[in-house]
């Protein structure tokens, strides 16, 4: 069965790009364009992996992640942070405690590298 990925990204073009890439490689993609909607969908759909942007409207990625970790299912959910903020940015204070699987800077990571990391994380899930 195809693995379900939840892509939370507020930039329409990037959302389309990652969606195309991942569906080409056999994943089922659910999307959200802000942290609030992303949290709602994550808790409803329990995806195999969440790809999470940080700077977003309504609720930023860090706040969403804190709520997610407070949930019984969400505390162990696999999350890859995919952002253009550097880890030293003020918004990301305490990111290490939210236990993401990977932290990637979008502009420095080619789509194929993103794909490799995703495969590494979700392909081990039975």
């Amino acid at each position, binding site marked *: 069965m195809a693995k379900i990925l939840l892509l939370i990204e507020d*930039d329409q*073009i*990037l959302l389309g*790009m990652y969606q*195309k*890439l991942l569906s*080409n490689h056999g994943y089922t993609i659910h999307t959200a364009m802000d942290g609030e909607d992303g949290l709602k969908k994550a808790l409803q759909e329990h995806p195999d992996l969440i790809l999470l942007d940080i*700077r977003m409207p309504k609720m930023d990625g860090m706040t969403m992640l804190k709520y997610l970790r407070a949930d019984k299912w969400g505390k162990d959910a696999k999350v890859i942070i995919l952002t*253009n*903020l*550097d880890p*030293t940015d003020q918004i990301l204070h305490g990111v290490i405690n939210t236990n993401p699987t990977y932290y990637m*800077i*979008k*502009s*420095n990571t*080619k*789509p*194929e590298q993103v794909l490799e990391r995703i495969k590494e994380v979700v392909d081990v899930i039975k």
Partner: protein
Amino acid sequence: MKLTDKRVLELEKSHRAMINLLDDFEEEKKKRETLTRDLEKFKLALDNISDQVVIADAKGIMLYANKTVMEKITGYKIEDAIGKKAGVLWKTPMPKEYYKKFWHTIKTEKKSFVGEIKNKRKNGEVYTATLNVSPVLDKDGKLLFFIGIERDITKEKEIDRAKSEFLAIASHELRTPLTAIDGLISMILDGEYGAITENIRQPLKDTSSSSERLIHLVNDLLSLSRMQAGKMKYALSCFNIDEVIKNTVHLLQPLSIQKGLDLTATKLDSSIVSGDLDKVKEILNNLIGNAINFTDKGSIIVSTKVDKNMVEISITDTGIGIAKEDISKLFGQFQQLGSGQGNLGSTGLGLNISKEMARKMGGDLWLEKTEVGVGSTFVFAIPKSN
């Protein structure tokens, strides 16, 4: 009564002595007047400069301060200050280590201390100042007093911070569309959008490498803005430098093969160094990356030399070299960007950042030698772990 010749001589002598004494007195008076005038001029000058000048005794008790400037900067009246310790009066919110270094430099080493300090004005407001305190010694080297010059740079700091914040936001906003350009081209080239014709492959590759260059430039700008805003954090740890060099060389090997260059790491010493691992990687990446960029044929050799306190990492290339007139501009912030020297653009910025990072870790970075058409050697020194 008739005066004897002897008596006349005596009287003449004492008369001359009296005249001499009066002359001396007149001269002394003139000297004193000149000195007073000079002192008044000096005091007037000190009161009309923009820097605060303080003279303190060996215990740090203030003996003199230029009244107008001191009152303007600190809000304290001169009579509040004289006879008190500067640090105590201004409730300086600096860490203990700062004072330790401060007193050690001026009292023990008897050298000038130059640094930045945060002080509190009388109204509680914190201001930032540059501080230059020098000990004044007698001819036997005994400490007489200290003279300190303080310049309020609070406004300049605020402007710098605003500039850096703006640069950070601008850089971040630039990254997002660049990610889309670079990512989409990469996916088209990988066939994610279907097969592409061969005649379109090369222009797409060229677009991709141009967008990568832009991303590097934005990353450089972002690093610089973080550094200027004091946001760059350093997590010091101890690690084996030869492993880091080998890994970086391995990582950049594909780029050098692509250009037909021989990139090797030789004579590596397995010293344990102290620094921020990520920053060290970034510096090496930058130096070796530059060497690859500016070398069209030949080799790039990375080697280490160890002395008592430092490990010196040399990166030697057989590249284009640097012209004499450009050497002084090499580590500047934006000079290369505006000088129209082709792809030297991102390099100038990268070197500036790398040098700053090296220094923040207690090391340094410099150009060891260069010759146009022959090549260059850059050295990155990093402290050995104790």
